[in-house]
């Protein structure tokens, strides 16, 4: 047990979130292990996005705390939480639609260096070229190399998602949060995304993925937590979840 907790990257400790009278999250306790992919599934309105919002500092929890590598995130600002290594892909892509694709990635790369605002012009000149090369490299890996100069707003939805993922990864985050990365995608695009995420996983990245599509969950996840009505009702390996009757009743049965 002691050994396992050493490998915990992110700990969501008894988080509770209410909106007025609505209990969006109740006693949610999650431990995300290093280099593992942890899926969170559950019906619409279960509180999955709310959970991510609490983690990234968009919403303060009513009770409880979020801890990254032993440091409490709760109470910090979104930009500070990102600086500590939390990167998120949103359910609807959040990108800079007026900037070119390459600039989108460059801005993210600069954030790691300049996010906290230090006026070091000499330093910024030195690294610009290197950052540009890294941006080109990652866009090429993501198959966006021939779209680099296009406006990000003109990309297809699937490409926007992929761009947002590239923006997160160029920051070399400690943990990657994905909110339904394949929602609204064709089977073919979904499979491409699965392959991409498998590659990312293979680099040793710690991933939290919220997903509707069971095919995606079973191809990627090492561990699955089921959220329903703001509570975690089951947790285990994908196979255990497939076999669980509670899960079937609460979620799988209704979804398929």
């Amino acid at each position, binding site marked *: 047990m002691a050994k396992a907790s050493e490998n915990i990257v992110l700990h969501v400790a008894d988080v509770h979130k209410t909106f007025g009278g609505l209990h969006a999250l109740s006693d949610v306790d999650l431990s995300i292990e290093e280099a593992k992919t942890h899926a969170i599934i559950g019906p619409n309105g279960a509180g999955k996005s709310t959970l991510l919002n609490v983690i990234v500092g968009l919403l303060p929890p009513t009770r409880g705390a979020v801890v990254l590598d032993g440091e409490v995130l709760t109470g910090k600002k979104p930009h500070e939480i990102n600086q500590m290594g939390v990167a998120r892909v949103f359910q609807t892509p959040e990108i*800079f639609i007026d900037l070119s694709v390459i600039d989108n990635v460059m801005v993210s790369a600069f*954030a790691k260096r300049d996010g906290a605002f230090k006026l070091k012009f000499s330093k910024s000149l030195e690294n610009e070229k290197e950052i540009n090369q890294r941006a080109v490299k990652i866009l090429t890996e993501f198959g966006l190399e021939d779209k680099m100069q296009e406006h990000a707003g003109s990309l297809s939805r699937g490409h926007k998602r992929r761009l947002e993922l590239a923006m997160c990864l160029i*920051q070399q985050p400690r943990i990657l949060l994905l909110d339904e990365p394949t929602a609204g995608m064709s089977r073919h695009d979904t499979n491409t995304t699965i392959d991409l995420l498998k590659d990312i996983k293979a680099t040793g990245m710690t991933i939290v993925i919220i997903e509707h599509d069971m095919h995606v969950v079973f191809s990627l996840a090492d561990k699955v937590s089921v959220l329903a009505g703001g509570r975690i009702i089951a947790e285990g390996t994908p196979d255990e979840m497939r076999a669980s009757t509670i899960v079937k009743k609460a979620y799988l049965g209704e979804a398929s």
Partner: protein
Amino acid sequence: MFNIPKKDAITFVLFAIVVLTMPIWLTPFGASYPALLQKFAIYALLAVGYNLLFGLTGYLSFGHAAFLGVGSYAAVWSFKLLSMNPVLALSFAILFSGIFALAIGYISLRRSGIYFSILTLAFAQMSYKLAYSVLSPITHGETGLQLTLQDPRAIDLMFIERGSSLPTSNLFGISMSGYSGFYFTAIILLIGFFIAQKITSSPFGMMLKGIKSNENRMNYTGFNTKPYMLTVFVISGIYAGVAGGLLSITDPLAGAERMQWTASGELVLMTILGGVGTLIGPVIGAWLIKYFENIFSAWNESVLHGFFAFLPDGFEDIVVTISSKFVGEGWHLTLGLMFVLVVVFLPGGIMEGARRIGTMFKNNKDKKTKQSSDSEKGEG
């Protein structure tokens, strides 16, 4: 520091040529007298600086006239107390407008969107009103702050005797009025334009564009956007302060009306008319509005008669009567109509119009070359 992209270098050289030759090419438009040329350079600088804030970040300040006013007062006080040297006056304009922008920006930037605009407007109007009342020992209220024969001018009077007439600002003997004054303002404009180019193409500029595009994303990407906003707000305020300083340098009289909200509004008009977010657009906007305000407003029926003399007599009278409503006092009407047309049909301002015409020509040319190559093929 000086390595700028090739495209920017070309733009800068062309811009410099256009600005420095203004006394020549503005002659046919009747606008090449020094006082107006100086205004063209000064308001272009003001618009370039304003666009750094509004164009890059999308934050609409309605209070930049306050910084213009502060710069004007600082420069005149520098003349009165120390010296008629314009560089010294500009240094004070920069210092005081910078401090002012820091204070106003610090508070106004706690909000964004319309609330930010209203806060800046409130501060500017407050400054304007205070200049007439509480602060009149500094601003000399309604009379305005001007030079007097009794001014201490501590530095100047160490070197020269007090004259019997009011001195004019001069840089080591070069007068800051007339054409030499224009060239001084033009050089400051070029420096300001260069810095603006530099900022726009730098990573800092890229981050400002990121703020305009999606400020939330900037936060989740790890940016603390507030200090970035404050920095550009202060830079932009200093541009306005320098413009105000230049107004005083070319004509040492500072009045509170420079701080009124209409002056800020005019600046917004200039930027939108020319093209928000482009470097050249706001300059063109500034020139157009200043041209209208100073030249077009002086046109009257006899000018129009001269203009339409080629028409048959009766018809000429009708045309003149109708068009006279749009010139002279009616210049606001023309400007207003132009503004409406631009916003409705060219949301990117005059620069978008220029770009569209550019691509139209290019397409035409492409078509022609294609046609000619096709016909060659046909013949072959």
